[in-house]
């Protein structure tokens, strides 16, 4: 009887094809990526059947969280610089170059009253988050409506800016009305509400 020879098998798997696929997917994701913007509060927007997308640029985002705190952000860093400088001049607060640079970061929201702004901007990112937790958002009451001032200043810097409101779905209506009536007061009566997509029901 002959010896049973166990053939030595090569267990080497060719990973080239696999690598091709992953690189392809990676490229796809990198090109289509728009990063989820870091927001100071997590907001769950209500759903609607509207299919219009948020414009790519020139957006003023007004965040309203369920307790009524208001946060503001502008999307162009250059606008942000001009806006902060103008706001500083208006309230006679001088912002240092470092503070302005901090403000120009896309993740920096306006979430405190203008008097606290200087202190807020001198903090680093982690402390800013904690600061937000204690702050009451941008004041928008009738006596001291800084929300209106911010938006008016922003409009004077770049008149193409459009306001969009991103509010949590459980926000009571009176808190949303504070913002909408402010916008009406400054004649910004055209704005958009940010929603998530819901499918159109069958048959429409």
């Amino acid at each position, binding site marked *: 009887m002959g010896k049973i020879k166990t053939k030595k098998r090569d267990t*080497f798997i*060719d*990973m*080239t094809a*696999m*690598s091709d696929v*992953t*690189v392809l*997917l*990676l490229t796809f*994701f*990198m090109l*289509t*990526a*728009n*990063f*989820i913007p870091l927001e100071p509060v997590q907001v769950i*927007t*209500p*759903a*609607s*059947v*509207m*299919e*219009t*997308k*948020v*414009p790519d640029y020139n957006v003023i985002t007004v965040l*309203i969280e369920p307790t009524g705190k208001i946060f503001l952000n502008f999307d162009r860093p250059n606008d942000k610089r001009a806006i902060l400088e103008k706001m500083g001049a208006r309230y006679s607060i001088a912002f240092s170059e470092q503070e302005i640079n901090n403000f120009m970061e896309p993740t920096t929201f306006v979430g405190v009253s203008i008097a606290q702004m200087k202190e807020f901007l001198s903090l680093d990112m982690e402390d800013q988050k904690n600061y937000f937790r204690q702050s009451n958002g941008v004041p928008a009451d009738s006596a001291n409506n800084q929300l209106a001032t911010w938006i008016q200043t922003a409009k004077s810097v770049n008149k193409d800016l459009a306001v*969009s409101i*991103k*509010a*949590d*779905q*459980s*926000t*009571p*209506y*009176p*808190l*949303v*009305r504070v913002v909408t*009536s402010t*916008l*009406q*007061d400054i004649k910004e*009566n*055209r*704005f*958009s*509400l*940010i*929603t*998530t*997509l*819901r499918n*159109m*029901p069958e*048959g*429409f």
Partner: protein
Amino acid sequence: MAEVNTGGGGHGAKKGQPKKLNLRVDFTPMVDMNMLLLTFFMFCTSLSKPQIMDLVLPVKDDQIINEDEKNKVKDSKAITLLLGKDDKVYYYFGKVDNAMYKDYNSLKEADYSPSGLRAILLERNANAVRQMVELKRQKLRKEINEESFKEQSDKIKDDPDGQVVVIKPTDESTYRNLVDVLDEMQICSIGKYAIVEMSEGDNFLIQNYLTKGVYGSERELPQ
């Protein structure tokens, strides 16, 4: 692990013959790294952008003019929705009069489900909805282009005989309620709607309805 084996060398190879080069490169670490990056990108990106709903509110100075305009609305075409608390919506058709204030049953109750508010609006606005559905079908079959679709849908929504919806959110309603109602306007092809503040009379109606007439019998009817 990139194997650039210079095979042979030992036995078998005849002298003078060129050495066989094994140029197989192991791609496993490369795939590992790609997968890692891929997962990162998948977690950190939002593929779909959020949608927006455009809203135009009247400028406050124009309120007086609007008051006049409101009166122009044909009473038979008006639907008033009062957004109450606990996701309830109360509605009435036409104009409020004294008879309505007296009878607490004049106010109807509905919810935001398809069988609630939508059914009512669809029934009232059946004509426009039918035209809209037909139009969308045409667009789907590519019989009309985007532009004429827009033009014609605007025309349907602008129909002077169409329904006019007055939305009045109470202080107990949430933002979600408001968006839901605005969404129903979209679904039911209602072109004319306005968000209006609650009036004393509307408050009275809701209170009267909730207390089944007790509230109204104790107080004077609002003007």
